[in-house]
């Protein structure tokens, strides 16, 4: 080690007198003293308390309705029917009724939820081809091997969209009806578009370039996923622009959930018409479900969730409560520390040798 210097003279090899080399860099040396720690603790306790209360109030102001429809209402029939694989192709509809005690003010969001469905299995999550979904022609015809075993169908035709994730797409559909007291049932209008991340809809998922071709022509030569009843270009019969890889339901499904219990956005209340302009009125509702998605394979449950939101999101009480608990914990610790400091460390008593 040591570098060769060209300096000459009696002190040629004398090291430089720089603060860095002499380890004299100016520095701040903090220490955990009572003057800093104790006020900090009390302050943090206050902050957490404030946050906790604020968040709790915020969360309390939201309304949420959860409805497990797996075997509810008339769905038990469909539930049994779906247990048998041979009936997979047969349609099955059922209705579940429920009522809302208080009006859901403002925007109301309609979710479907699955319990115990592991979208987060490694092999499951890997089984997709993002390049195909972003509209790469090459991957449309020859999907990535990651999609195995849903790369090609029995005839060797490439599957679009390939992979286990797309194949297992949730395919129940819902029609929510409001039973006005004394009036005829009113279908609750849901916005079924604009429910994905902007980046997903516009960048991550693209249809292959059409070049004046229709969507079916573009997807020619590809097969629909095994479990699908309709090909990808016919997912939304109502809106042709919502078909192909940019179908909102597909995009939402493809954004895999981190945990086995999850809910995904199905639609947002369209508040254009009465009586829904100010939200979802109290009263009786029914949901007509086209019950396609089998449950027994993941031993889980299916549910629908209606909820209103705040800036803080949905009705999750964890954070407010956690903040309140943390606040009291900090306060407790702060008191203990104060006592200890008072008894032992005051005026540097403990530092005497």
């Amino acid at each position, binding site marked *: *080690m040591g570098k060769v210097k060209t300096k000459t003279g009696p*002190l*040629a090899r*004398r*090291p*430089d007198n720089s603060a860095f*080399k*002499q*380890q004299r*860099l*100016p*520095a*701040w*040396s903090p*220490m*955990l003293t*009572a003057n800093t*720690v104790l006020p900090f603790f009390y302050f943090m306790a206050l902050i957490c308390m404030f946050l906790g209360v604020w968040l709790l109030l915020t969360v309390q102001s939201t309304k949420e309705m959860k409805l497990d429809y797996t075997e509810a209402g008339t769905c038990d029939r469909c539930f049994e029917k779906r247990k048998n694989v041979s009936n997979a192709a047969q349609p099955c509809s059922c209705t579940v009724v429920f009522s809302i005690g208080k009006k859901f003010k403002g925007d109301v969001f309609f979710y479907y939820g699955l319990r115990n469905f*592991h979208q*987060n299995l*490694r*092999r*499951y*999550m890997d089984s997709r081809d*993002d*390049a195909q*979904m*972003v509209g790469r022609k090459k991957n449309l015809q020859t999907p*990535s091997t*990651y999609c195995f075993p849903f790369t090609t169908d029995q005839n060797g035709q490439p599957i679009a969209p390939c992979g286990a994730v797309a194949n*297992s797409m949730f395919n129940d559909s819902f029609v929510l009806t409001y039973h006005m007291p004394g009036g005829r049932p009113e279908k609750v209008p849901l916005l079924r578009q604009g429910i*994905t*991340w902007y*980046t997903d809809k516009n*960048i991550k998922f693209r249809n292959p370039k059409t070049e004046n071709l229709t969507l079916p022509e573009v997807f020619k030569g590809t097969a629909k996923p095994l479990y699908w009843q309709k090909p990808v270009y016919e997912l939304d019969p109502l809106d042709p622009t919502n078909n192909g890889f940019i179908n909102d339901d597909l995009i939402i499904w493809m*954004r*895999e959930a*981190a*945990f*086995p219990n*999850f*809910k995904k956005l199905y639609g947002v209340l369209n508040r254009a018409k009465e009586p829904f302009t100010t939200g979802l009125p109290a009263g009786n509702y029914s949901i007509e479900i086209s019950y396609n998605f*089998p449950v*027994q394979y*993941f*031993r889980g449950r299916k549910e629908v969730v209606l909820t209103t*939101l705040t800036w*803080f*999101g*949905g009705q999750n009480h*964890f*954070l407010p409560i*956690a903040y309140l608990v*943390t606040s009291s914990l900090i306060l407790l610790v702060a008191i203990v*520390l104060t006592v*200890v400091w008072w008894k*032992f*460390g005051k005026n540097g008593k403990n*530092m005497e*040798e």
Partner: protein
Amino acid sequence: MHWECEWEHGSTRHFTYLLHSSSFIHLFTVLSFLLQTNAIKTSKYNFFTFLPLNLFEQFQRIANAYFLFLLVLQVIPAISSLSWFTTVVPLVLVLTVTAAKDATDDIVSAICNLCMIFFPRVSADLLLLSSSEPLNLVYIETAELDGETNLKVRQALPVTGDLGDDIEKLADFNGEVRCEPPNNRLDRFTGTLTYAGQKYPLDNEKILLRGCTLRNTEWCFGLVLFGGPETKLMQNCGKSTFKRTSIDRLMNVLVLCIFGFLAIMCTILAIGNFFWEMNEGSQFTVFLPRQEGKDAKFSAFLTFWSYVIILNTVVPISLYVSVEIIRLGNSFYIDWDRKMYFARNDTPAEARTTTLNEELGQIKYVFSDKTGTLTQNIMTFNKCSINGKSYGKKHSFLYTVDFSFNPLADPRFMFHDHALVEAVKLENPEVHAFFRLLALCHTVMAEEKTEGELLYQAQSPDEGALVTAARNFGFVFRSRTPESVSIMEMGQQRSYELLAILDFNNVRKRMSVIVRSPEGKLSLYCKGADTIIYERLHQSCSKLMDEFAGEGLRTLALAYKDLDEDYFSQWKQRHHEASTTLDDREDKLDQLYEEIEKDLLLLGATAIEDKLQDGVPHTIEQLSKADVKIWVLTGDKQETAENIGYSCNLLREEMNEVFIISGNSPEDAYALEHSMELEFLRTACMCKAVICCRVTPLQKAQVVELVKKYKQAVTLAIGDGANDVSMIKAAHIGVGISGQEGMQAVLSSDYSFAQFRFLQRLLLVHGRWSYLRMCKFLRYFFYKNFTFTFVHFWYAFFCGFSAQTVYDEWFITLYNLMYTALPVLGMSLFDQDVNDLWSFQHPQLYMPGQLNLYFSKKAFFKCALHSCYSSLVIFFIPYLAMNDTVRDDGKDVADYQSFALLTQTCLMFAVSIQLGFEMAYWTAVNTFFILGSLAMYFAVTFTMYSNGMFLMLPSAFPFIGTARNSLNQPNIWLTILLTSILCVLPVVTYRFLMIQLCPTINDRVIFKVRQAKAAPPPLPRRARIRRTSSRRSGYAFSHAQGYGDLVTSGRFLRRPAVSRSSGFAHTGRTTTGFSPMGRSAGYSPTGRPQNVKVNDVEVTSLQMYRTMDHTL
């Protein structure tokens, strides 16, 4: 030419590399030849072999091999739970950094090697055949071997010396050498040369050992007896072993533990996977079919390996390379330290090894050499007692004695007692006799290059000091011939006929000369160890002797005796007979010496001070306050070592438990033998101070090994000479004193600097900081990686044990390399709890290192627990906060990608804040690194998740938009805040409680520093250097035997004076040439009767007279 060399015991070993006629050219250039072939090749690589060799070597390191194995695992698709780049990128980076370091090390060592062979140094053990100098003498310096810096003389046998530089003759010479097998005795050699039917004994005087340096000799021829590892020097060097620090060893143990832990975790998860696959998975096959014939068992097996890959970060690949970088940085600090730079010979400190730094903070035992390490190896004459009156005792340092009356005085000589000069000037006969003895009784050679400029070549520095003292007090030794000694007595040239030198040896501990004064008086002058001399005094001297003892000058005693002419001639005859007998020659000579050296008359005693290096007592005091045990191991004799022990504060008067062991005394030599070593160690460790004297280089190493073996403590050896090499190599840390002529110790050392006192800074500042930094680094590094990894473990319970990672793969790749590398490196390079001045002020701060308090298995376990807690917080808080939650616009935020981003952001904040708590010294660089790393995390994350990157490689960057869509949510940030608070809370609480309830020494000192902040930092206390009482000043008398022979045989005088005019009559010159000058005007030299022929005075002396005449 036919040479054969046999070892006495190993019967027939032919030295084929010796000088056969075909290779006689080697003989001609024997030195340069040996320099070339004996040069040890230390450069490992060349340009082409570097890459393959280095890679091969690197993969031999277990950690790197492990990562290669991981890489192989990742290529298997069924197992691969991570993309290949998560391992390849770090591995390549680590290999590159390590390779770069190896390459520079290699280049540096190659350069060093070149420097090393630059000196005209003998590099094999040679039998001297002939030389350019008269009488086949060779002048050598053996500083490398035994630390002595004086010139020594070696002489070839006449039978080989006559060959001269005649190659033909040398080639034709047909002899046989039988000698002892290679051994490590530096001071003896036995063998015979058989030539023409005659046997010639070979002893150490005819051998040039590897490591000695030729001086004043143009050329010489030698026969290689031992080369390479068989040379005595190398036999003494001990094994050079690859040194590793205790932290290294602990780290290896921990890494093995971690491997075990990893296996346990993976097994748990594999079992979990098995049950999950049995229950849930078998149903879920509808959505995710298994490959054919692969059941839950096989899935569990694959999962095991997948988790090995995912959880591999518990054994972080960057650990080793980071450790190396930190050590390198801390080594540079040592190189750069101005306070360890010695301006007098322009020597900075040097960290020659860059892998041992933190061990400097854990030293428990320091083994120090004495000569040249504690002492300056400069002897000064500063006290004497003549005829019961002692001089130079007063501590009046105000003025030094003015020697201007004496034109031949050595200006460097200092003396502080004017009374002695007055006594000389007043012609006190005892004082004159005293100095006359000093001027006559020695084996010093004088060289007078220019008029009046005398240069003494003394065989030992103390003898040089004595002769110089005599010179300054007006008894100038000027020259010698085999038969005479010329001195200038108070300006008067006198030549004494030198009749015999009764040489010094270790048993006799004295030397005498028998001279005939110009007046014809026969005298024996003797100087030697006080105890020895006292035994040989005349009865009448007993009173005087008592006075001396009372005076306390128990050092070197001077005595003389007038001889009877008849007795002497008879003695001389017997002496001649004895010196020509073949058997028992030495015994007989000893008896003769004993016979004549009795009934001596005491003249006085001198005290020579072996000058300590600056700051030695203070350093020793500081180190002992830091609970570092200092053992002095010296080849010197007991009295000297003891005296040095007292003067450097190692021994104090009030100490009772002092253990001084002498290596060569018959009973003690066994102390190092196997059966006794424990007893020795136990005794030694009970003592407050340990001094081992008369130990050979190898014994020094044995002592070190002993302590290493049984005390499990970290040892440091410090020395300056080749005799310390073995000990330097044996100890955990070897320190060489550099800037002196000898390089051997420095070359085998790990650290080198010019002064012993720098040891204090090396240990108490650099060592302590390095240890502190390394431990902080390791604690934090394990913490951050465990926290990182454990989150995967918790996630496994939610993802069906499917080996799904929690984080984005890019984050996994870059976490150790980019996001957290610089802050922790910054801490490990800059951190200091208190600055150097406070470190000196409180040497106790060093003790935690000796007790391994900062990093141990316990500390590691604590780290793991802490990580466990943090990972639980970092996983479960986001899980509970995000599960079932949506964005403020109802869109997804509980998806996998958002969750990954959230946990990794929480992790980044948690580990960054934790680092902030670890750091005690926030420089601008540290702050920049921490904030910069966080900023870089966000910058890189946003880049990775950007549209452009995704469109370029959709499958490599699937996280597009995640950062934009989730980091704009308040609940995400509230979650991050909560995890940070919960991670910090217990840390702050625990630390604050510890500081309040049981503050460590560090806390106390830091507290003091804060209190003293207003006041300037303390100045290091200048220790009162307690010079102990006068009777502790030692006289080294480190002569070797055999010098007297040389002097009398006349072989000594290499260059005769320019024009020696033999027979120049110099009778009864008066002392006109010497005039009193200056203050000493009252001086008038004696005119003693001078009627004896002096025919061998050198012209130089006469010329001196004449010039003096002219000046008058």
